[in-house]
């Protein structure tokens, strides 16, 4: 379960970074002294984001029109013994004008116990979809697409449980992931939650094929389910895909997208269906400069008028061009323009224009990269 403390709510962002770095530098030398030869690795990842609204927006967002450390994450990881590895991370979030300090991840894992298998136990980001499997500071853009935010939360779904991944014994890559987590809460919340009628359970079937010596495409099929205390039943069906085309050390072209369908059945047996997706295409000029564009779409399939009871066709879409300058793999700067428009019955309900800036950097060790 996530432990959260509302810490120093009145404290500004700068003080937060100072606080974290102070903790880091106080803790680390002690560890280094005590942990000789243990192979413990540690790092700090900071994610500084500035958002600037170009127009009055109906969206209430406390992080708007200011620059904040969206997240400062402290990570400790390494071998626990000859069988197990461990990872503990905690993060400070800036939310609603306050700073929250929370346990982000704490899990024990092994890939040495059962052949072709990986087992993870503890608190972690669920191994589904694409974005949900990566820390936000490792994403190729600044903020979550609309669909991800609505279905899996702005950062991702994290919970406590058990995850098992098995590589099928066939000549190509096919990995089957199955997980169960407590499901007391779902998505980002500062509540303790309550015992669900059916815990969160999820599965992903991931496959991959090389397209050439320097390119490949990954495909994932996902399902997640949960039945809340009040009887509300959530089901998510998702498809994720990522293609990378490398040229030497340059990621020449990245194409990444996800498509999710959500079925939400209320305790009174009303079914709400939503469909959301994004596709992101990014071109790399060299190993430093990247330019990408993301298209988001979100559709409430079952939205009806409160007055007439008629179906109301609607769509929210977004266009997000993003420029990235990567000084190295440890430091990146991004600039993005976000345009969102919600349309209902062929009329524009609202539009939102904003500019986002990001600086992310990593101090200390960084684990090897995934595809």
């Amino acid at each position, binding site marked *: 379960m996530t432990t959260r403390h509302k810490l120093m709510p009145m404290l500004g962002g700068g003080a937060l970074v100072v606080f974290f770095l102070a903790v880091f530098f106080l803790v680390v030398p002690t560890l280094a002294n005590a942990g000789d030869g243990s192979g413990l690795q540690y790092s700090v990842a900071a994610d500084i984001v500035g958002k600037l609204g170009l127009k009055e927006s109906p969206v209430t967002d406390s992080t708007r029109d200011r620059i904040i450390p969206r997240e400062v994450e402290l990570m400790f990881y390494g071998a626990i013994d*000859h069988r197990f*590895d461990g990872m503990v991370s905690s993060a400070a979030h800036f939310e609603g004008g306050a700073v929250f300090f929370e346990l982000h991840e704490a899990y024990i894992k092994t*890939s*040495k*116990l*059962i*052949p*072709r*298998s*990986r087992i993870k136990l503890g608190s972690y980001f669920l191994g589904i979809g694409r974005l949900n499997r990566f820390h936000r500071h490792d994403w190729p853009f600044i903020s979550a697409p609309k669909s991800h935010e609505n279905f899996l939360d702005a950062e991702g779904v994290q919970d406590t449980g058990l995850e098992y*991944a*098995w*590589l*099928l*014994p*066939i*000549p*190509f*890559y*096919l*990995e089957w992931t199955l997980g169960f987590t407590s499901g007391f809460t779902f998505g980002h919340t500062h509540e303790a939650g309550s015992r669900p009628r059916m815990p969160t359970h999820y599965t992903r079937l*991931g*496959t*991959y*094929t*090389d397209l050439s*010596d*320097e390119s*490949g495409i*990954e495909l994932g099929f996902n399902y997640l389910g949960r039945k809340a205390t009040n009887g509300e039943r959530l089901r998510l069906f998702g498809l994720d895909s990522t293609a*990378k085309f*490398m040229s*030497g*050390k340059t990621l020449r072209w990245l194409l990444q997208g996800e498509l999710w369908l959500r079925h939400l059945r209320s305790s009174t047996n009303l079914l709400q269906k939503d469909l959301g997706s994004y596709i992101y295409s990014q071109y790399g000029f060299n*190993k430093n400069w990247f330019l990408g564009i993301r298209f988001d779409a979100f559709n409430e399939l079952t939205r009806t008028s409160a007055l007439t009871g008629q179906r109301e066709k609607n769509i929210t879409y977004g266009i997000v061009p993003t420029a990235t300058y990567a000084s*190295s793999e*440890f430091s990146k700067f991004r600039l993005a323009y976000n345009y969102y428009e919600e349309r209902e019955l062929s009329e524009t309900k609202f539009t939102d224009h904003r500019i986002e800036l990001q600086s992310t950097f990593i101090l200390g060790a960084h*684990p*090897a*990269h*995934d*595809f």
Partner: protein
Amino acid sequence: MMKIMKTIFLMLSLSITNAAEAKLQILTTTTNLSWLAQQIAGDKAEVVPLLTGVEDVHYINAKPSFISKASNADILCSVGLGLELGWLPKVLEKSGNAQIQPRGKGYCVLGEGIDVLDKVTKKVDRSMGDVHPEGNPHFSLSPDHLIKADSNFVGVLATVDPTNSDYYLAQYKKTKSELQQLRDRIRKELSAKLEKGTKILEYHKEFTYFFHAYGLHSAGSMEELPGVPPSAGRIAKVALKAKATGVKAAISAPYSPQKIVQRVSAIAKIPSVVLPVHVRANTEYNSYPKLQKHLAAKLIKTIKPQVQP
């Protein structure tokens, strides 16, 4: 559902019977290592490189196809010395194959215990670029270093497959003498055409061991910080120094930024040449001896017209 279960069961049993009859499965990261492994394992093993020979080994993605291959491997050989640090640990972990993970009996790091060049004596931090803190890991272009790496490999091979250890030892001795002969031949050829100590500038220090093996001299790298393209100031400085100290050529790997190499070559008024670092299938350097010959021939062709005007 029953059908799916049946299929899975069939696949499982197939893979088990296959494993019993099949040859030893050896994976290597680079093609130079796979050539070496195949020489020693002979017909007792199937050796497959993860890379093809075109890639820049420093910057690789932990592709799921690597993970799939690693899950079936009996041995996985890497260069080590930090070269594959950015991606290989992920492949090993995700393979779920305990045997090829650190301290498993099929875990094999060929660079362990070799005579490392360019040892770093200063304290390393990230402001120094992608510096190799354990010294220069690009040893595979030196036959002498490869022989040493070879002995690491034989050790692992004999542990994983002890019944054939005599065979592997014999293969090792054969390969060792072949590599020594190759080295002597290339050395003779190079010393006949190029002056001893001929200075050559590299983009990244990938050819240093080759020069070391054949009495040539690396005049350093164009990069100031490894992995970071040199600034205009650095380019001018390196080029002028090269000119002043009698450097004969500027060489680089195919994935190095050619514009920079051209610029250095133009300022220093020295020829430049792009050379392969790894064995590659379907090329004229599809084996290690051919790669060595190719490198020597290309160097002579680039430098010689100047030496004898």
